[in-house]
């Protein structure tokens, strides 16, 4: 989808733009929540904090909820299932970073397919993504390692880039076009000078990204090093907590459990982590992945070997959250680069 329109929006207009959107949409944006930045529903543009680098919990949590009721049931002799009506309220996620938007494109592939996941896909269909380019990438950002950038707009409907006292507005999809149509009076068409500013801002942001992960030929390399000692070395440090998977925008693993209260109950889907031993523990006591080395190797292979084989895309967008939040500094860039250099 090439860029349809190139416009600019004076910063003063952003408030009116959002108020216009708040009218008929549930509007989610980055909010400072006691030190952690989260995507929350807001009622007033003032609640937004647009100085954030990236949110602690990725916006994936708005579509693939951490706790989701699949259906309710009543127990007793006559069991009855009452399905949950999957809300299709129109939603806007404002301020989503290009890497998180790409992660949604990756998750689409998992939740589509021969069995479609109605919860995620209904919300996805009814959500408009208004991206915000990164002008100050984080310490561990490495989206440029995946031929993406802090201002790439493939996976958003509208991309805003802060170019000083204006926002450069790129409309990339019909959804975006439709949304912007009703607010045309706030926008003006972009001039050449704005174009230069955008390229300048983008290049400055790209230059600020110092970290690089070399994933050239990584799928084949990993095929050859399943038994390599690198995994054991990394696994020694790992605590097996769920931080890296819970905060990863491309992780989609979940658990399904029943919750009951005497004569009624519900089947609930919750996030799960392949780093927990119970993830693959069988009732017989057999566990195909009993040790941390099996689990951490599986997590790396899932993202850099299995997903490329199954869906043709590396399940990593370079957001750096797993690096920032790992208690023992297991650094996925360091891991993959070491895998690249390993003698096989």
């Amino acid at each position, binding site marked *: 989808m090439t860029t349809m329109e190139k416009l600019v929006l004076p910063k003063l207009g952003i408030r009116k733009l959002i108020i216009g959107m708040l009218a008929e949409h549930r509007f989610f944006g980055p909010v400072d929540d006691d030190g952690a930045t989260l995507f929350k529903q807001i009622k007033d543009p003032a609640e937004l904090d647009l100085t954030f680098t990236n949110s602690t919990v990725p916006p994936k949590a708005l579509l693939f909820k951490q706790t989701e009721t699949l*259906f309710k049931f009543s127990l007793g002799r006559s069991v009855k299932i009452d399905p949950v009506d999957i809300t299709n309220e129109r939603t806007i996620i404002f301020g989503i970073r290009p890497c998180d938007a790409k992660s949604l494109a990756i998750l689409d592939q998992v939740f589509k397919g021969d069995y479609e996941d109605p919860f995620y896909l209904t919300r996805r269909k009814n959500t408009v993504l208004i991206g915000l380019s990164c002008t100050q990438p984080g310490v561990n950002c490495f989206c440029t390692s995946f031929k993406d950038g802090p201002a790439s707009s493939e996976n958003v409907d509208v991309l805003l880039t802060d170019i000083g006292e204006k926002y450069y507005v790129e409309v990339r999809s019909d959804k975006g076009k439709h949304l912007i149509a009703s607010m045309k009076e706030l926008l003006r068409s972009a001039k050449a000078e704005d174009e230069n500013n955008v390229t300048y801002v983008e290049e400055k942001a790209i230059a600020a990204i110092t970290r690089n992960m070399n994933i050239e030929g990584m799928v084949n390399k990993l095929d050859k090093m399943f038994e390599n000692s690198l995994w054991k070395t990394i696994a020694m440090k790992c605590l097996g907590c769920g931080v890296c998977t819970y905060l990863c925008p491309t992780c989609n693993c979940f658990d399904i459990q029943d919750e009951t209260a005497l004569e009624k109950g519900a089947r609930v889907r919750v996030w799960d982590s392949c780093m927990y031993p119970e993830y693959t523990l069988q009732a017989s006591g057999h566990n195909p992945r009993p040790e941390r080395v099996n689990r951490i190797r599986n997590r790396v292979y899932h993202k850099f070997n299995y997903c490329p084989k199954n869906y043709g895309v590396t399940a990593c967008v370079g957001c750096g959250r797993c690096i920032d939040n790992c208690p023992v500094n297991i650094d996925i860039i360091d891991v993959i680069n070491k895998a690249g250099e390993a003698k096989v």
Partner: protein
Amino acid sequence: MNVNPYQPLLATIDEIRLEVAGERPIKTLKLVLQEEDLRKRFSYLPGQCVMVSLFGAGECFFAISSSPTQKGYIEVSVMKLGKVTSALHECEPGDVIGVRGPYGNSFDVDAWQGKNMVFIGGGIGQAPLRSLINYIVENRKKYGKIDVVYGARTSEDLCFKKELSELEKRDDLGVHLSIDVEEEGWKKFVGFVPDNLLQVKPSPKNTIAVTCGPPIMIKFVIQNLLKLGFTEEQIFTTLEMRMKCGIGKCGRCNIGNLFVCKDGPVFSYKQLKNIQGEM
């Protein structure tokens, strides 16, 4: 978009047969879907599985142990082991549970027509094989020589005893039962299933071997089959992993990049040989 693949169809437990008593009890549940037309349209092939859910306890991924030739119902054989299976063992006929599926691939019964078949089962692993065996026995003429090699820890742990004894009476197939430990009154083979297989010594010519049982047994059965001259295309197995969604979304049942619930549970040894992953 409102089809919810996680929502099961309601089914009634029509009949419960106790196959094995003792510490590791196994019961076969005969499930009948409540809705008439769904019951007719529910078609499956041997080897496919269903997610059986007991509301309030959870869900389990079971191989359908009845043959598709038996219309109007499906059977699953449940060994009492964990939270949901224990709850299933408390059920009585008439209870209502949930069924969704069929999931996974199946045994390639059409491609195997005209071939000799050898089935090597261990313990509860006989459940998916029973579906296949009964299906092939129903279409006996289409297949060559048939050998059923099945073993369990004790004679009491042998599942589907009645059916096996009927098969033993037939002259157009061989049944080779075994138990792990010597028991008084047991005249057949004593020892592990892989050793029993070596003793039966099926010829690999134009033969398909299908095995299912605990991972450790599958490992040695495959080794012995290779010793007997079977090639990797002739060896098939069904695998078991912890399952939650059954439709390839929840990520946990992977062996390498293959999902047991979607790309399996039936795998050829050729597939498994060059897939790197933990079973």
